[in-house]
């Protein structure tokens, strides 16, 4: 692969440009569906773009006590992490743009960047509500990281490959084994909601309690890029979820791409439904829920997969 095609792939398709477009489209679909579930009209299709452009044009205010450098750099960190993580997830065809054995761990680590950036943003804003929100973000992260890692690693135990693409290739040949991973699928679905800080797990940015949490001091283009990178996070999480738990593919790149769109949209609809039908949990309830129910389930899945692997020598 020449450098030029590699760059084209990373920057345009299926890389950053596609990620951006899909992130904005998903934001619109999420908002529209959410609105329709609440018997509201919802925004027009161009609303996310309009919001982004409008925010870019706004005056940027940075609190005097805030750490200027960190305040400005964090949105970029967050966005960059998401753009890199997306490179290792298959979108066009069965394989990702780049892959190596163990890239899943890399993706997981990059996925830890947005909450960390959020935490640092809140912490360095030196604002009361932001600090409380930052603490909550970190608390929530400790709650969901373990079940998320356990649940996402479960399918790889069967496939024997710690690469997203390798995993997908394995399940393409053994499609029925996907059913074994159903508990992990449910755990990951709930954890995704938690990771994306959406209701019922939106305690870190609870508007009616702590205004809007870590990002309360953000405005203008920094806020625009922060929210945009959160949209990208949604795409990355959905893509990773479909690659790990719904790895059905045909081997024909174009069809697989359409399949990818259908799968991510379906998962997003489920997440949206979850968001529309629940109340926000308290942070202590979130921690208790993650550790009491999600982590043991994920652990059981790991044990089950290990046993299966030993017994059937897949």
């Amino acid at each position, binding site marked *: 692969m020449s450098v030029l095609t590699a760059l084209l792939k990373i920057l345009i398709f299926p890389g950053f440009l596609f990620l951006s477009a899909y992130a904005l489209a998903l934001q619109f679909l999420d908002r529209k569906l959410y609105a329709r*579930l*609440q*018997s*509201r009209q919802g925004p027009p299709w161009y609303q996310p773009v309009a919001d982004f452009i409008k925010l870019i044009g706004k005056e940027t205010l940075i609190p005097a006590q805030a750490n200027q450098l960190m305040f400005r750099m964090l949105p970029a960190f967050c966005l960059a992490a998401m753009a890199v993580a997306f490179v290792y997830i298959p979108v066009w065809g069965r394989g990702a743009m780049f892959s190596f054995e163990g890239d899943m761990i890399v993706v997981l680590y990059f996925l830890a960047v947005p909450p960390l950036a959020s935490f640092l943003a809140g912490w360095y804003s*030196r604002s*009361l*509500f932001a*600090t*409380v929100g930052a603490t*909550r973000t970190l608390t929530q992260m400790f709650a969901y990281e373990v079940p998320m890692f356990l649940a996402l690693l479960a399918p790889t135990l069967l496939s024997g490959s710690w690469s997203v693409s390798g995993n997908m290739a394995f399940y393409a040949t053994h499609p029925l084994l996907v059913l074994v991973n159903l508990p992990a699928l449910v755990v990951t679905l709930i954890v995704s909601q938690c990771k994306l800080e959406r*209701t*019922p797990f*939106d*305690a870190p940015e*609870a*508007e*009616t*309690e*702590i*205004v809007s949490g870590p990002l309360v001091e953000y405005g203008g283009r920094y806020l625009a890029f922060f929210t945009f990178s959160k949209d990208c996070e949604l795409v990355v999480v959905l893509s990773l979820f479909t690659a790990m738990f719904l790895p059905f593919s045909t081997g024909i790149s174009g069809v697989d791409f359409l399949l990818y769109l259908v799968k991510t949209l379906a998962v997003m609809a489920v997440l949206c439904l979850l968001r*529309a*039908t*629940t*109340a*926000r*949990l*308290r*942070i*202590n*309830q979130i921690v208790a829920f993650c550790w009491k129910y999600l982590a043991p389930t994920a652990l059981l899945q790991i044990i089950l997969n290990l046993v299966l692997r030993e017994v059937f020598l897949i």
Partner: protein
Amino acid sequence: MENELVSALITQFPELEGKVTVSKPMRVSVDWLPQDLFLKVIYWLHDEQKLTKGHNVIGTDEGENLGFIYMISGPDQVIVILRTTAPKSDPRVPSLSGLYKSFVLFERELCDLFGAQVTGLPSGPRYPLPDNWPKEQWPLRKEWKPENFDRQTMTYHEPAQPAATTADPQQAAVEAKTEALLETVELGEEAKTATAYVNQPLPDAAAAKPPAPAHPEGDNLITVPIGPQHPSLDEPSTFTITLEGEKVEGAVIGIGYNHRGLEKACESRTYVQDLYIIERVCGICSHAHTTAYCMCVEQLAGVTVPPRAEYIRLIVGEMERLHSHLLWLGVAGHEIGFDTLFMMSWRDRERVLDILTVLGGNRINYGINCLGGVRRDIDPGLAQDILKTMDFLETEIEYYLKLAETDSTLAARLAGVGVLSKADCLLYGAAGPVARAAGIADDVRQIEPYGAYRDIPVRVVTDDHADVFGRTLVRIKEMLESIRLIREALRLLPEGPLTVRVPRRIPAGEAIIRVEAPRGEDLHYLRATGTDMPDRVRVRAPTECNWHGMQHMLEGGYLSDVPITIAAIDPCYSCTDRAISLTGHSSLSGEVLDWKQLREYSLQWYRQRGVDPSRIDVSDAAARAD
């Protein structure tokens, strides 16, 4: 019941012979007493007769004296009205807030509005007047004229003597204004320390602690200001929450931002004009307030409202309860992040508002009540529409009830939050759904049926959860009860006229009326002197009772539960506060800016950003604007 109480009083205190009367059913009125006798009587009533519920304390201006009217009641719900006076030269009166916790706010009002010195009142900030209100100005005293008060400089000018002014009068006016600006309001001690609270003050030890740092470094206590502007508050108020982690260690409540001087305004307008003011005490329970006010005037004038009017009042009152509770349900859903519930219940609320618009012409201030009856009729077509809407709402509300009883996230957020037990409710004098959720059947519609409620008895909804969950259930079930009442009233709607004539001049006397507003007992006091204007109007909205238990409800909970706990009493700040615009509050920053300082601040703000406003030619800009 009333007569037993009267005879018991006279047996205990022979000197009260001839001074105690049963003024109206359920009202025992005691004449003006000297303070020592008054104290003996009220302590005896509290301790021996168990009259432990404090309804209201009203200040009045009796010429040379200040009058204090106390209303208390016991288990048999008879309101005993006790009066005492203090000369204006030495307006001292002992505080009864130790006896009746719910008197704290009312007694603060006496201090602020009448200049009474309530001895023994727990120290706290002023309420309900703004912090930069000048000292020695007591707006509800009769000699205080609002037209002599300059709101910009917050100064009161004695009526100008027609003195011989030699200099240019315009110049003199400017100088006077400058003078006033210069001697700007000195902050009172209490205003400086104003971490406003309603309830018992924090223990001295807690108050003496150094203020918690804004950033949690070194100390693990942080103070979070909820308000005056905060997404979860729909009206300004300040809740200063001290947190240890996520746990609320202390809560300090500051209200009084919305005092609009309605009671003073009422005193200089006729009874009919006052109706429009009273309608605007509150945005949601406007009908409850006018009903109480009209009933006061009608009782004094001795007129009987035609039955059809009473039924229409009931129907509108119950529709108001419906839309108020639907609004509350939506707010509660929003506070706990359940926006779908918020959208759905507000959508349903529109149906009620549509009916009220057809009936009264307005969504909120429908102005159905007029003195002596109601303004508009319900014709058969509208009755059909109402019944259809009720059918629609019944299915929706039954669904909400099922949702509240079964939804697990809702239960997780509401159960065990903001607990105010039955004993605490009685102690703090909680009213309405808050009390009913703790198992107290406190509903004026049943205790003292008025209007059409005499024909259509109300089944009082109570619950034993005593927390936010219980309050939710009580409100939802009350909506179902309201639908039943509306259907019943439409079925029984008698024929007849809508109004009777009420004379312009109301005979001298006083009336104390309570009405069940959506948020609880709404108590109005009206005193007439035989003219066409009232002598004293006192509106005690239900929220004013419910503030007292708030600190108790907040402390020990989580920060996440603060918004829903506040929302669960369905607070109506403007009802409680009722005066004059507020330009600053010191509870957080410790400084109050007056007009001049605000201007300087804004000029400085712009200069820092490279804009020099002094170079903008104002006259030029004004000319262009024309």
